[in-house]
């Protein structure tokens, strides 16, 4: 869970997370369960809507200045779609929004995703507490960068 330092980081502005299912995947119930779990963990939660394009995901993330984008997919198109999101962030020089992934992801792909900076990549059945702890940790890194002098 969050250490004392990151708790004070979020004291007056909770972790803000954007849930998104970009690309071709209409399945929504899992998203709703996650959204509620994040809210109950004290976070501010946004949902990018049905079938947003990677560009729309980034636009929303920037407008809302979220700490974390949580991407999820069930249909196996992770590498292409997640990579697009990660590439767009790099192209726009955004390094203070973290990206985490989830879905049914083969182990081989997980390594590739990690290399793109997309961490977590939890499969179905992962305890919510594990996901929340991971998001909190990535959010703390992102928030520290946001608050750094540059």
């Amino acid at each position, binding site marked *: 869970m969050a250490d004392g330092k990151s708790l*004070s980081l979020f*004291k*007056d*502005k*909770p972790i803000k997370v954007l849930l998104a299912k970009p690309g071709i995947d209409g399945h929504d119930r899992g998203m709703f369960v996650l*959204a*509620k779990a*994040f*809210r*109950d*963990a*004290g*976070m*501010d*939660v*946004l*949902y*990018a*809507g049905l079938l*947003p394009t990677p560009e*729309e995901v980034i*636009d*929303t993330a*920037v*407008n*809302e*200045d979220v700490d974390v984008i949580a991407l999820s997919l069930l249909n196996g198109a992770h590498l292409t779609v997640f990579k697009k999101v990660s590439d767009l962030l790099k192209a726009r020089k*955004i390094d203070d929004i973290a990206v985490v992934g989830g879905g049914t992801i083969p182990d081989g792909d997980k390594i590739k995703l990690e290399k793109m900076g997309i961490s977590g990549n939890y499969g179905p059945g992962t305890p919510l507490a594990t996901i929340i702890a991971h998001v909190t940790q990535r959010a703390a890194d992102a928030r520290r960068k*946001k*608050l*750094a*002098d*540059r």
Partner: protein
Amino acid sequence: MSRLNIDGLAKGIIAGDIPSISRGISIVEDHSQNYASSELMKKIYDRTGRIHIIGVTGPPGVGKSSLIGMLAAEMSKRKQKTSIIAVDASSPFTGGTLLGNRIRMQDSINQNSIFMRSLASRGFKGGLSSAALSTIKILDAAGYESVIVETVGSGQADIDIMKIAHTILVLHAPGLGDIVQSIKAGIMEIGDLFVVNKIDRQEAFLAIKDIEDSLAMLPSGTWTKKVIGVNSLTGEHVGELMDEITRHREYYFKNRPDDEGIREMSIYIEDEMRRIINERSRQKGDLHREMKKLMSRGIDPFNGALKIVDKIIGTEV
């Protein structure tokens, strides 16, 4: 804590750079960054004073977000640069917030590239009025001609936001409770334009008539309050509503009150005091135990409260 480059940020905001605007809002939302906020406000102040503030209020589910999406699309069609702020209610139990307003206007935001920001109400903690007001200042400095503000329809921050809005839209819809209720709540007085949404529903025309009748009972001013029926899913009559908003904008700016700054300052003062008192009472540790102790000593609740309040805001900080 690290310092942010406020100078660069202010320049970015004034140039209309979206990431700068967005980061600026994050700072004014975060009260642990009050020093940065104060520097930012100093730097953008002389660029403010032009934005038209449109407040949208009404009961839950009446269609505020849907209508705002349609209005924003209409403004884009008219080549007006608009922006949106929407307040979502935080959970009183966990402090977390589902920022759900955005999803109802997402299509319009995407299609018209509109800047939209969600704000969490933060409940009893306070701080929303100040965050919302500073957010409007940032959008003003960034050159937006207008900002549409959706409120949650209750609470102190709502009242505050309506106090600083130039044009207030009050929404109703058939099947959402008695209009007499809102008349009692004083909502007829604060509204500049009345909207009956969901005119695709049968009873909408009765609602329009009810509001017209109760408006007729108000003392007449220099601005004649109108009722307009719209459908926020199809956009029907949204153009007419936009015409009325434009008319009211002209009316407001022609008769602009000279105490706007004072009103804004009052809101900041009250909000800041509420927030600080809440924070201090949390720092004072277990007040509940203290209260129990007082009660067990046979002190009456009123005098007990005086002791607790003295402990929170007494001179020994």
